[in-house]
């Protein structure tokens, strides 16, 4: 029976959330429920159909899974009990694995993983640094800058990372992906991350302060 199914479908069915893809009857409840449907190219319903028909490239190069906000509305309402949100996460993995991932969110995911693997816990300034270095998302950076000062003022950006005793355990646990990525972060000396993180936070704060002041004065003028 299995050899009548296309290879991409079989591959997806192996992944968490993928085993029920064949159950989709295109009722459209998922796409009707999706809060980010307008950002998506296809939406979950058509993604299901594309998977069923083996359209690997269309699915994995689409931006849909990167826009999924994991709100679980589709999952909770799906009358076929397909864990769609989980499936979207699996599609992200597949897209990375197969080299399709280009979305900024995929860079963010990588940066996030590297950061928590580095310290065992998250350290926001370093996460930001890693993300912007990876993505060169200048527009996003500029958008973030005005938020940095208020965050600093309200003590919402730490200068120093919280670390667990032995952060190496984070990478020792099986990741189900190419180990290269994980190891490279381990090899890096651990101090520069904090330092640059702290610098970035400071720098961001300064630039933010400047921009904020400019903005304030502009607003006042208007």
């Amino acid at each position, binding site marked *: 029976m299995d050899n009548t199914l296309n290879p991409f479908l079989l591959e997806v069915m192996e992944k*968490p959330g993928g085993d029920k893809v064949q159950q989709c009857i295109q009722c459209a409840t998922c796409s009707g429920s999706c*809060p*980010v449907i307008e*950002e998506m190219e296809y939406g979950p319903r058509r993604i299901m159909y594309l998977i069923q028909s083996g359209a690997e490239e269309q699915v994995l190069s689409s931006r849909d899974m*990167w*826009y999924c*906000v*994991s*709100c*679980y*509305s589709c*999952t*909770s309402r799906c009358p076929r009990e397909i*864990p769609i*949100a989980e499936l979207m*996460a699996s599609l*992200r*993995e597949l897209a*990375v694995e197969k080299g399709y991932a280009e*979305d*900024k*969110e995929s*860079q*963010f*995911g990588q940066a*996030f*993983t590297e950061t*928590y693997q580095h310290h*065992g*816990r*998250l350290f*926001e300034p370093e996460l*930001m640094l890693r*993300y912007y270095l990876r*993505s060169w*998302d200048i527009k*996003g950076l500029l*958008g*973030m800058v005005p*938020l940095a000062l*208020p*965050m600093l003022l*309200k*003590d*919402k*950006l*730490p200068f120093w990372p*919280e670390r*667990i*005793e*032995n952060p190496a*355990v*984070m990478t*020792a*646990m*099986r*990741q*189900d*992906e190419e180990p290269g990525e994980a190891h490279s972060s381990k090899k890096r000396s651990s101090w520069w991350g904090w330092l640059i993180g702290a610098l970035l936070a400071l720098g961001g704060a300064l630039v933010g302060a400047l921009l904020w002041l400019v903005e304030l004065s502009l607003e006042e003028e208007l």
Partner: protein
Amino acid sequence: MRYAYYPGCSLQSGAKEYDLSMRAVFARLGIELVEIEDWSCCGAVHAEGQAKINLPARNLALAEVQGMTTIVAPCSGCYLNLRRAAKQAASGKKVRQQINMELPGELKITADIEVLHPLYLLIEEYGLEKIRAQVTHPLTGLRVASYYGCMLTRPKDRFDSPEKPQGLDELMRVLGAEVVPFPYQSKCCGGALAISHSDVTVKLSGQVLGSAKERGAEVVTLGCPMCHTALDLYQHKAERALNQTFELPILYFTQLMGLALGIDREQLGLERHIVSTAAVVEQVVKRESEQAKKRTREQASEVV
């Protein structure tokens, strides 16, 4: 009552006020929280493959080392991840063995571990009536919109409805607040995309805030640091994008509980918000003093 406490990364940095108020409120209620030693990141939504289970599982095992099998996880995301791992570990001997094999060192999960969100811990294990009895500064007349977000009630679990949840509303009523129903109570705030696609976050959080405002809320309450970021930190962006003023303070439910239980406000981190919480605090104080005056008058008239 004694529970293992998993604060999660956000509660150490951006959402410190959630951590502060949580600890203060639980201490007041007589619930002991023991922070899991050397806890690590749960992987949020970015862990892949087996790491999705392994990362949270390490924390479950650590709690067990400290002799505790019920964990409180205040961040909805951490709660979902930890709970998913706990369920998986409890689903069969083989699965548990598999998980244990991949845990570092001697760490092992041997017991069935329960992971609870503090909201439902209070409702199910502590009891709302017990809380009601300890309210000293009721939030009378405060119009609160309870915002559940996503991962607190979805995917469906035994605690509350994934569509029309009630828990937070019930708690707010117990605190004396007036609950403002609004249709976006469990719609997504877009917090997950706050960095990479902040336009989405702005749009979705704007919808949530707009809906709460439209139905007459004075304050939004919630129990998730990511939602808090989207609704508090991004509120000005949303206001600008929608050309609308919200000025809606976003308080963790533990902060409102703190106010209602008469906990020293210093302990609640109320000054750490981007959108000022002063108006809410003031209102609670004002109403309390009015109440106090009224009580004194009543007592006086009784004496007469």
